[in-house]
C-alpha cells in the first residue's frame, strides 16, 4: 500500500518522491510522458549531448548546489565564463551589459557603458534619481513604475525591460516590485536613491556568479535523481495519468492543474562550424529589447562561450541557442538570420552542422487549490532554485506530519 502518490515526474516531483522515500515512506510516482525530468532533459544535436531545457540555475540560497552535492554531482557544479552578457537595443549595434546593474537598473547612470546603451540624454535623465527626494515613487506597485518615475523611460525600455523579459518573460510593468527585486524597496528608503540602492544590493551580494551549471549538462540532475528513485524503491510508473480513484495515499501534485495553460516557448539550437565565433564576439550571449529591428528572437545564448566544458566537448564547433516567444514560420532560417545579426558574424546554411527545435510550455502561476498539496513551477515560480526549495519544504512537512 502506497503512503504517497506523486503526480508528475519533473524535477519537483522527483525531489519530493526521493526525499519521502529516503524518509521511509512508500512512494508511487506517476508520469504521463515516457520520461522523467520534465524541462531538465537532454537532446543530441550535431552529436553533442545538450540540455534541451534548463541549462543553468540560480545560485542563491545554495539550494541546487546542495542537492547536486547530495546526489554525487558536488564536484560537477561549474560557473559560467566571466565574459558577461550583451544587450541588443531597439536600434543600433549590440552593447555589453553595464557592469553594475540590478535587473538592468544601473548603479552609475552616467557610466560610459550605460551611456553606450541608452544614450546621453536618457543617462542624464536617469541621473536625476540622485536628486529626486527618496520618498518619490517609493510606493510604486510594479518594477516598471518605479524605474520609469525615478530614472525615466530610457532606462526602463532600453535596459530593464530586455533583462526582466529574459529572466521572467514579462515586461517590468507586469511584475510586482517586491517579487522581481526583493529588498530593493527597503534599500531605496535607506540609501536615498535607486542607483545607490542598486550599488548597495550588488555590494552585499555574495561573491561569485549568480548562476551556475553542471559539467556535462543540467540533465545529469535528472539521471541521478532517477537513479535515486530506483535506489530508494519509488514505484515509478511512466506513461500513466492519475485518474481519480486509481491512486492511493496522500497525493502530491507535481504537474500543473491545467497542463495546457501557460506560455509557449520555442528553443532553436544551432550547432555551427564558424571559426569567427571563437573570439566570443558577444560574450556569453545577448538579451534582445522588445521591438529590436529585424530580430525575432528574444535571447541568444552562445553556449560554447558560456560553458568551458561544452567548448571542449564541441571540438571547435559552436552551439547557439535562441529562444522565441512566437515561433516564426521558418524557424531554422530565422534562427540563423537572427544569430548572424546578433553576433555580428555572417552565418549561412553551409556553416550549420545540425539544428534542433524544442517547445516548452511554462505553466501559468496558479497557486494551489484548497486541500491540494502542490509543488512545481505553478506555485514556486520559474527557476530550479525556487522549485527545489519548495519541493524539499513540502517533503519535510509531510515527513514531520
Amino acid at each position: 500500500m502506497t503512503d504517497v502518490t506523486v503526480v508528475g515526474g519533473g524535477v519537483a516531483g522527483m525531489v519530493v518522491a526521493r526525499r519521502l522515500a529516503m524518509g521511509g515512506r512508500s512512494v508511487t510516482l506517476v508520469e504521463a510522458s515516457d520520461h522523467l525530468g520534465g524541462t531538465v532533459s537532454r537532446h543530441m544535436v550535431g552529436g553533442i549531448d545538450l540540455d534541451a531545457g534548463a541549462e543553468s540555475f540560480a545560485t542563491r540560497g545554495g539550494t541546487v548546489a546542495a542537492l547536486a552535492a547530495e546526489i554525487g554531482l558536488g564536484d560537477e557544479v561549474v560557473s559560467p565564463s566571466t565574459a558577461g552578457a550583451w544587450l541588443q537595443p531597439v536600434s543600433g549595434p549590440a552593447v555589453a551589459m553595464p557592469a553594475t546593474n540590478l535587473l538592468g537598473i544601473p548603479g552609475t547612470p552616467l557610466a560610459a557603458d550605460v551611456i553606450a546603451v541608452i544614450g546621453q540624454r536618457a543617462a542624464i535623465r536617469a541621473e536625476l534619481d540622485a536628486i529626486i527626494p527618496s520618498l518619490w515613487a517609493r510606493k510604486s506597485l510594479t518594477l516598471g513604475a518605479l524605474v520609469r518615475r525615478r530614472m525615466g523611460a530610457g532606462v526602463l525600455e532600453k535596459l530593464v525591460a530586455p533583462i526582466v523579459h529574459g529572466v521572467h518573460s514579462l515586461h517590468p510593468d507586469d511584475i510586482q516590485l517586491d517579487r522581481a527585486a526583493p529588498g530593493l524597496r527597503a534599500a531605496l528608503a535607506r540609501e536615498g536613491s535607486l542607483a545607490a540602492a542598486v550599488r548597495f544590493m550588488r555590494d552585499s551580494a555574495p561573491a561569485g556568479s549568480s548562476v551556475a551549471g553542471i559539467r556535462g549538462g543540467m540533465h545529469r540532475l535528472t539521471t541521478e535523481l532517477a537513479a535515486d528513485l530506483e535506489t530508494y524503491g519509488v514505484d515509478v510508473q511512466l506513461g500513466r495519468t492519475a485518474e481519480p480513484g486509481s491512486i492511493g495515499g496522500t497525493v502530491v501534485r507535481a504537474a500543473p492543474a491545467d497542463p495546457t495553460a501557460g506560455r509557449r516557448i520555442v528553443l532553436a539550437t544551432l550547432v555551427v562550424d564558424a571559426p569567427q565565433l571563437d573570439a566570443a564576439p558577444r560574450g556569453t550571449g545577448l538579451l534582445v529589447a522588445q521591438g529590436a529591428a529585424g530580430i525575432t528572437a528574444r535571447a541568444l545564448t552562445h553556449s560554447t562561450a558560456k560553458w568551458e566544458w561544452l567548448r571542449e566537448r564541441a571540438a571547435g564547433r559552436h552551439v547557439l541557442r535562441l529562444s522565441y516567444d512566437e515561433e516564426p514560420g521558418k524557424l531554422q532560417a530565422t534562427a540563423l538570420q537572427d544569430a548572424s545579426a546578433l553576433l555580428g558574424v555572417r552565418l549561412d546554411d553551409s556553416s550549420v552542422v545540425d539544428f534542433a527545435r524544442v517547445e516548452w510550455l511554462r505553466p501559468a502561476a496558479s497557486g494551489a487549490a484548497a486541500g491540494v498539496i502542490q509543488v512545481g513551477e505553478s506555485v514556486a515560480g520559474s527557476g530550479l532554485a525556487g522549485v527545489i526549495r519548495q519541493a524539499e519544504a513540502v517533503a519535510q512537512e509531510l515527513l514531520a506530519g
Partner: protein
Amino acid sequence: MPLSSDHPLLDGRTGQSALIRAYRGERPDVTPVWFMRQAGRSLPEYREIRVGNAMLDACLTPELASEITLQPVRRHRVDAAIFFSDIVIPVKLAGIDVEIVPGRGPVIASPIRSASDVAALRPIDPAALDPIREAVAMTVAQLGSTPLIGFAGAPFTLASYLVEGGPSKDQQRARTMMYADPQSWATLLNWCADVSGEFLKAQIEAGASAAQLFDSWVGSLSEQQYVRRVAPHSKRALSHLRGFDVPKVHFGVGSGEVLKAMHDIGADVMGVDWRIPLDEASRRLGGDVPLQGNIDPALLGAPWHILEAHVRDVMDRGLSAPSHVVNLGHGVPPDTDPDVLSRIVGLVHGD
C-alpha cells in the same frame, strides 16, 4: 512475521549460546570462535565427500550441504556452524547460468552489462529456495545448542560477479556501470539485494540463529561511492529480515574506509578484516559495536608460537569492543592444516 516458536533461537537451544550472547553485546565466560570458510576445502572429509559432485550441485543437495556444514563443528568444536553455500547460489536459483570453475571461481555464461540485460532479470521464485530450507532444517536438527549462521553475499559483490562475468581484480566494469548508467546500476543492485535477502530469509526461517552478509569486494570502493551507490542496496538486502530478532553480522574485505558506513546499514555486529587492529576498528565504530575477527589468515602457516602470540593480541584488542567473537580476517585458505584451526579453538576457549 516473527520466527516460529520452535526456532532454535526461541525454543531454548541457541538463545543463550556464547555466540548469540556475544553477538548481542554480552561477554560470555568463554569467548566464542568460528572461522569463515571453515566448511569446505581445507578439510579432508570434505574433499572426500565432494568427489564426483560439482561445487554448486553439492550446495543444492540438502544432504551434502548439511553434512559439509556439520563437519567443522565436529572436528574443531567451534561455537557456530556457517551454512555451506556460495554467494552465487541464489543467483543460480533465480535463473542465471553460472558455474564454479575450479581454481577460478564463479563464471557467468552471459554477463549482465547493458540496460536490457538488467531489464531482463526476473525476481527469484521463493519455491526455488526449498533445497536451502531443507538443508538448513536438516542441519539445525543435528546441531543442538550450536547456532547456525545464515549466509549471503552483499549486492555490490554479487553484482560485480554478474557484470564482470566472474572474479576480477578491481571490479572496473562494475564500477564503470555505476557511473555510466546509474539507473541500471540501481536496478541491478536492487535485484541482487532481493535475491540475497530472500536467500538469507529462507535460512533464518528454516532455523539459522544469526545472519552474515558478506561484501567481499567492498574494498575497491571509495567511501563516497559506497555510501551513495551501494549502501542503500545492502540495507535493502537486510530489510528482508525485518521482523526477525536475529543478530546481523556484516563483513567486508578492505573495509577500513567504510567500516562505519557498513555498520550504518543496520548491522548489529561488524566483521573486521586483518588490515586494521580491532581496537582501531572499535574506535572507528564509536566503541559500542560487537566485533568479529580478525586473525590474519597468512599467519595460519606460521610457527605456532608466532600464531599464538597473534591470536592473544587479537583477543586483547577485542577487549576494547563491548564483545568479541574470534574469527579470521578473511576465509580459511584451502591449504590450511586443519589441526591448526582446532588448536586455535582450544587456545581461545582456554582449554
